């Protein structure tokens, strides 16, 4: 067959994807169809195109049949375009002489009727064949990358990632919006399933962060703006005024004692409101940095503008500065790791559980503080009146597995409920009743932990609690909180009077997840968790190169999984830095000076100011290094002078024609 440039030799490969595609699409028929399309020299179908033999098939045909263009009809290009481009390159073909037809995600998986799925697949393949005939060989450009990483969120995820990267000798900016790092884990006394002391394993890591020469800890700070791209981000960080000079304060606490408020008066955020603090305070003894902070909402000077400022007087180091202003810092980073964690469900949304109405209904997080030896009660489990509870109910799945709140399983609450059952029993000797829907304990040593709790004699009742009430129906219920549930394993409804109720609240995305996501140009799942590139194969990558996610911001998870992800994100960031460069997709715009009328329409279109006018020649010129390939200018040019590589008008019209020439 003769090879004319107008009609290059095309190879078409139809993937079965096991049965994923083959079940809905008649792959043989589609292949026969493809074989008869103009320019197609080879058409094959194969079980798994992305597998090694599948890729070799392409390489071999390029070499043996002299293919000049390749079309693979398989899954989404977002998944495997890179794979097949590499295969083409390995076969000696320019990787951009390639086109993918998405017949899995957009055909086989979404089409009920087999016949119509087959037709749609044919149309998409016809389109790809038409389009690829117009494809042009292109070159990728390389850009050098920096060697610094910004990590957002100083929970265990952020801390672990920061230490990993810093230990590898790279600079880390750890941005935490609270006055201290530590996240949720810092609040716990013990962690399941080993019951090792949270502080014992966390605080050494926290102080390593503070002391590490490669880590710049930016607490009480938030990311304002992110510009740039993988390898070369420019990030603006806003430092909130602490009203204390961090570098001067040594955390002696003199100022706290001296404050005009003689007694702590305001609910402590760190202690979930179970303890009180002054306007100037240290969140908790091991806070990192070990520096006080002055709360602008309660400090007299900062609210009323009038105070004796005893604190200022007390500080011998002159660390307090009530006039401190927010500060903006701009840093460069090659990579970003977002590790902003989660928030617990607010049970006020479920009034039937009486949180906020009955004093002795607590959230799990409050009880975490209560059982903490350095917490507000010194580790004692006590009721509001100071007495020890004789019986305690723990309610699982509060705000989880419920269409009305959150449909998902929060994954850690079964385990932490078991942990709290153990701690409460140990500290108070109370009878503990645990109400669960399913006991979810998948993890190393987790089922064994459940077994241990069973043995300890916690009363497990399978049934979701309908309500908690102080309406007594019997003598024994008087003065108690009564928990109502069907004991679904025994088959009767039960009312159990208890002194204290713990609500095992679920995990939900941070309330500002949407704003954070926009800043970093990453996506959220429907529920609001940050979206990973692939749930199995790229769990810490995002769709934005150079931005990784780790920990509970990606979905509910426990500390072991969080740390695993943090390690993964850190090593992916390090891999990028180590590689030293990024490759830029050659989908940039180009102006044809012959056609350009110099009207300047395009200049205002480009969000990246990538186009300027060559005053001498009177035409527009695109700066390839700045162009990100959106194509907006192309659509705008009245003279049709701009084209976008990989998305030329020609290619798109061709694709359109392919689609419409076939039903």
């Amino acid at each position: 067959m003769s090879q004319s440039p107008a009609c290059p030799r095309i190879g078409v490969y139809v993937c079965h994807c096991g049965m994923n595609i083959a079940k809905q699409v008649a792959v043989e028929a589609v292949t026969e169809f493809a074989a008869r399309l103009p320019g197609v020299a080879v058409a094959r179908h194969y079980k798994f195109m992305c597998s090694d033999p599948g890729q070799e098939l392409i390489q071999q045909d390029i070499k043996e049949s002299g293919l000049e263009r390749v079309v693979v009809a398989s899954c989404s290009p977002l998944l495997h375009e890179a794979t097949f481009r590499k295969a083409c390159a390995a076969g000696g073909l320019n990787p951009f002489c390639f086109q993918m037809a998405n017949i899995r995600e957009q055909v086989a998986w979404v089409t009920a009727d087999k016949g119509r799925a087959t037709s749609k697949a044919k149309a998409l393949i016809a389109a790809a064949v038409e389009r690829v005939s117009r494809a042009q060989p292109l070159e990728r450009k390389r850009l050098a990358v920096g060697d610094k990483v910004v990590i957002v969120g100083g929970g265990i995820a952020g801390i672990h990632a920061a230490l990993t990267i810093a230990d590898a000798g790279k600079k880390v900016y750890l941005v935490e919006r609270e006055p201290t790092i530590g996240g949720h884990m810092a609040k716990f006394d013990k962690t399941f399933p080993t019951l090792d002391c949270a502080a014992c394993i966390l605080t050494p890591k926290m102080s390593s962060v503070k002391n590490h020469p490669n880590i710049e800890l930016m607490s009480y700070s938030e990311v304002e703006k992110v510009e740039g791209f993988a390898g070369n981000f420019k990030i603006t960080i806003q430092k909130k005024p602490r009203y204390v000079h961090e570098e001067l304060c040594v955390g002696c606490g003199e100022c706290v004692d001296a404050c005009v408020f003689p007694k702590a008066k305001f609910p402590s955020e760190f202690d979930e409101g179970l303890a009180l603090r002054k306007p100037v305070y240290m969140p908790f003894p091991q806070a990192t940095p070990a520096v006080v902070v002055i709360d602008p909402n309660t400090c007299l000077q900062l609210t009323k503008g009038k105070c004796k400022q005893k604190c200022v007087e007390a500080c011998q180091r002159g660390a307090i500065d009530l006039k401190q202003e927010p500060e903006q810092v701009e840093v460069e980073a090659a990579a970003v790791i977002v590790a902003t964690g989660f928030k617990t469900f607010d049970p006020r949304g479920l009034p039937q559980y009486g949180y906020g109405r009955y004093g002795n209904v607590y959230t799990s997080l409050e009880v975490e503080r209560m059982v903490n030896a350095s917490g507000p009660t010194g580790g004692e489990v006590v009721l509001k009146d100071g007495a020890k509870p004789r019986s305690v109910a723990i309610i699982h799945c509060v705000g989880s597995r419920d269409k009305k709140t959150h449909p998902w399983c929060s994954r850690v609450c079964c385990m932490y409920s078991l942990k709290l059952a153990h701690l409460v029993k140990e500290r108070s000797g109370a009878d503990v009743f645990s109400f669960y829907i399913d006991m979810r304990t998948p993890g190393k040593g987790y089922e064994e932990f459940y077994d241990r709790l069973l043995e300890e004699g916690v009363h497990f009742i399978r049934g979701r609690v309908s309500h908690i009430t102080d309406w007594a129906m019997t003598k024994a219920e008087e003065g108690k909180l009564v928990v109502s549930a069907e004991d679904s394993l025994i088959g009767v409804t039960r009312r159990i009077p208890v002194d204290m109720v713990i609500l095992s609240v679920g995990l939900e995305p941070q309330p500002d997840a949407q704003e954070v996501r926009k800043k970093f140009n990453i996506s959220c799942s429907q529920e609001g968790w940050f979206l990973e590139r692939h749930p199995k194969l790229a769990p810490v990558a995002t769709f934005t190169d150079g931005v990784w996610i780790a920990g509970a911001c990606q979905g509910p998870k426990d500390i072991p999984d969080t740390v695993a992800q943090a390690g993964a994100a850190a090593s992916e960031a390090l891999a990028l830095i180590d590689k030293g460069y990024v490759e830029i997709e050659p989908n940039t715009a180009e102006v044809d000076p012959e056609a350009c009328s110099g009207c300047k329409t395009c200049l205002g279109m480009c969000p990246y100011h990538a186009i300027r006018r060559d005053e001498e020649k009177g035409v527009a010129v695109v700066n390839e290094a700045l162009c990100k390939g959106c194509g907006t200018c192309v659509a705008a040019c009245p003279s049709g002078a701009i084209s976008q590589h990989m998305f030329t008008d020609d290619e798109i019209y061709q694709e359109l024609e392919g689609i419409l020439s076939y039903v």
Partner: protein
Amino acid sequence: MPGLQIQRRVKYQEELDADFPRRVADMPGAADLNRCIQCGTCSATCPVSSFMDLTPRRVVAMTRAGFKEEVLRSNTIWLCASCYSCTVECPKGIKITDVMYALKRLAIQERAYPRHFPTPVLAREFFHKVRQTGRSNEGQIATVMILKTNPLKLLRQIPLGLKLLVKGRMSLWTEKMSGNKRQLQDLLDYMDTHKELR
């Protein structure tokens, strides 16, 4: 509406016997009761669970939760044939057969078994016979049992008894233990007098 049976099905905590699970768990073999994960393997493997009012799994759950009345009055503990299937299959190593024994004993102690229910009666007969003679006599025990529980049935059993007699498989006199019968009785009496042993 006539015929509509209405029963209160809620259980108040004070109606339960908080001590009951401990009493059961204190008996040999029943200690692991709490570790039950309610998987139901015991009920599924039990050859007679299809006739039980409470499946073995529910017996475990209810025992553990203190449903003493319901458990001791259930037919389950008497239907248990001691086949040990459940004990072998239980993923948590709970000796359910022993739990059933423990419950039988408690039911007898508390006189909470169905009147005229043959099994407890049979057990008592057996008990007396062994004390007298050191050995049991199946034929005699069975006869007494039937007389005490369902005398009419005895008539139906006559042909079988006769046949056994003819084949030499049943004797009307009791085979007695040779030798030191006193020793055996002393042994049993010792257990009675030393209540602290139980």
